[in-house]
């Protein structure tokens, strides 16, 4: 049924206003997006503001040992007298950083590989596909253990780099598929016969058409990176210094928070990771419904 779409309305407002208006209309009515965005923003605020109101080394021994939350130490203290809230807020910051950095690296690699493979086709596509498949099936955990054996000190950046370099294949595949279908559209041919170079065609004709898709892909990579980072930290393959939510959980379990009942030590980081990653995924679904009108129920 294209009757509705075929109606040309010369007096309609310009597209950008219409689109934004439509986007906001749906965004506001979509609890998924609103609630999840709020949750993420709250955590982000904690990560930014927290270290400002509680400056100093989060791993310093400052307070009474293993005391429950009170007015001074909002999240209580660890078995070593470290401020859990300070650790938590620095941890949130580190987690976001690892997620953002890892997600960005993966996104960039995925986009480059996906675009080039999808647009160029032929032998280049075959080679890139092979590389994608190989990285896909590499057992990242085993690889990480090998790397760990060689690096005595690791920071957040190295961890993020590792995550970024190993989690891009699915994004590359998805972007390649979309690029494939867009590259056959006639506006790409039109750009080529106007003398536009391949690089510019990808950047200025194809990518803008996929902007919502690229955004969603980034969100998923971001969330995935956080999860992977937390998991790695939890099994002890994380950074050797500093603090992150995963590391907090690792320490909590390693130093007996569970049998001792120190719920204020392992609950906040666990809830934090779950809330942030979960919200990101739910927001992704919500945004997908907005961007893709077919998923909406009228």
């Amino acid at each position: 049924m294209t009757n509705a779409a075929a109606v040309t309305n010369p007096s309609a407002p310009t597209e950008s206003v219409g689109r934004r208006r439509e986007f906001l209309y749906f965004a506001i009515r979509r609890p998924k997006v609103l609630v999840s965005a709020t949750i993420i923003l709250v955590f982000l605020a904690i990560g930014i503001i927290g270290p400002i109101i509680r400056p100093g080394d989060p791993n310093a021994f400052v307070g009474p040992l293993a005391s429950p939350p009170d007015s001074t130490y909002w999240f209580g203290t660890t078995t070593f007298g470290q401020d859990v809230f300070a650790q938590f807020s620095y941890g949130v910051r580190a987690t976001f950083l690892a997620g953002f950095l890892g997600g960005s690296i993966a996104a960039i690699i995925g986009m480059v590989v996906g675009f080039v493979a999808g647009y160029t086709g032929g032998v280049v596509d075959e080679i890139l596909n092979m590389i994608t498949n190989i990285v896909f099936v590499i057992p990242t955990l085993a690889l990480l253990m090998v790397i760990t054996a060689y690096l005595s000190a690791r920071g957040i950046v190295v961890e993020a780099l590792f995550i970024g370099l190993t989690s891009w294949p699915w994004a590359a595949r998805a972007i390649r598929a979309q690029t494939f279908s867009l590259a056959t559209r006639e506006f790409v041919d039109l750009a080529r016969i106007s003398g536009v170079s391949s690089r510019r065609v990808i950047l200025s004709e194809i990518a803008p058409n996929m902007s919502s898709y690229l955004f969603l892909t980034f969100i998923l990579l971001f969330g995935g990176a956080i999860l992977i980072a937390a998991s790695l930290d939890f099994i002890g393959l994380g950074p050797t210094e500093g603090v992150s939510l995963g590391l907090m959980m690792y320490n909590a379990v390693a130093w007996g928070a569970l049998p001792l009942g120190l719920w204020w030590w392992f609950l906040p980081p666990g809830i934090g990771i779950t809330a942030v990653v979960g919200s990101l995924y739910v927001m992704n679904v919500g945004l997908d419904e907005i961007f893709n009108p077919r998923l909406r129920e009228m």
Partner: protein
Amino acid sequence: MLTLEHVSKTYKVGAFGGGSLVAVREVDFTVAPGEVVSLIGESGSGKSTIGKMILRLISVNGGRILFDGTDISTLKGHELNAYYRAVTGVFQDPFSSFNPVFKVSHVFDMLRGRFGGSVEGRTWDERVGEALESVGLEGGQLLHKYPHQLSGGQLQRLLIARALLLDTKMLVADEVISMLDASTRIDVLNLLGDLKARGLGILFITHDLSLANYISERAVILRRGRAVEIGPTDRVFGNPLHPYTQQLLAAVPRLHEKWGKQIAPEDGAATTCLYHTSPAARDGSGSPRPAMAEIEPGHLVACANVDAHCPDDVAAGTAAVA
């Protein structure tokens, strides 16, 4: 102006490129300035492939395409730029030809980098305005709209205006009106006719014989990648020599005549082959035989049995006619 010499295109298909698919097989024809040549064929005939090869969107495997005497596959840099200017195309789906996230002015802005600036004292905006006027559109508000806000006819006109902006000499029109409504079709077609009068050469690719009959001076009938009949439109349609052309003409639904019950002969069942019985084909003097035989001035035809072996093939020694 544009010459196709024995042009072929073969695709590698199957895993690891084992098999091959011949999309275009040794096609020869020319387009002169101020002439509309229609390239007629059904799906799979290779007509769009030829259009894309002329526009350099697809590479040529065999033979060459010459523009003003130069092989287009050798063009680089400044000369290539000049080619993109001189030869351009308009495609079938107006809504697919415009990038939906940009305003329609984007198709003009894309050209500005390479072909922009003032020419003969007219600024870019003036040139765009002139081009729009030539196709019967008013600038101003129109350029700020998005593609889905305009009709198919308006979008196709914009693409033709783009070609005029480039001062193009040769337009490859690939099924440009098949997605338009009947009442707009004729307007766009008339526009092409007016452009022809200004000296533009047009390659009109279509599957619709009535349109080809309306607008073109010469016609090339394609079947499965091969040219089977070439000639002045009124001769090809008035006196079709190839069984395939006859079959096509019999199948066209007319407006004042019902379909007859006769069916043209199927492949391989052609009784006489005008190509193999013509003097040119029977001349075994050693020089390579032309792919088509000229039966009337300018009116050429290929073997009637393009896929199967022709019983009238003298050179192969299985002549049915002495």
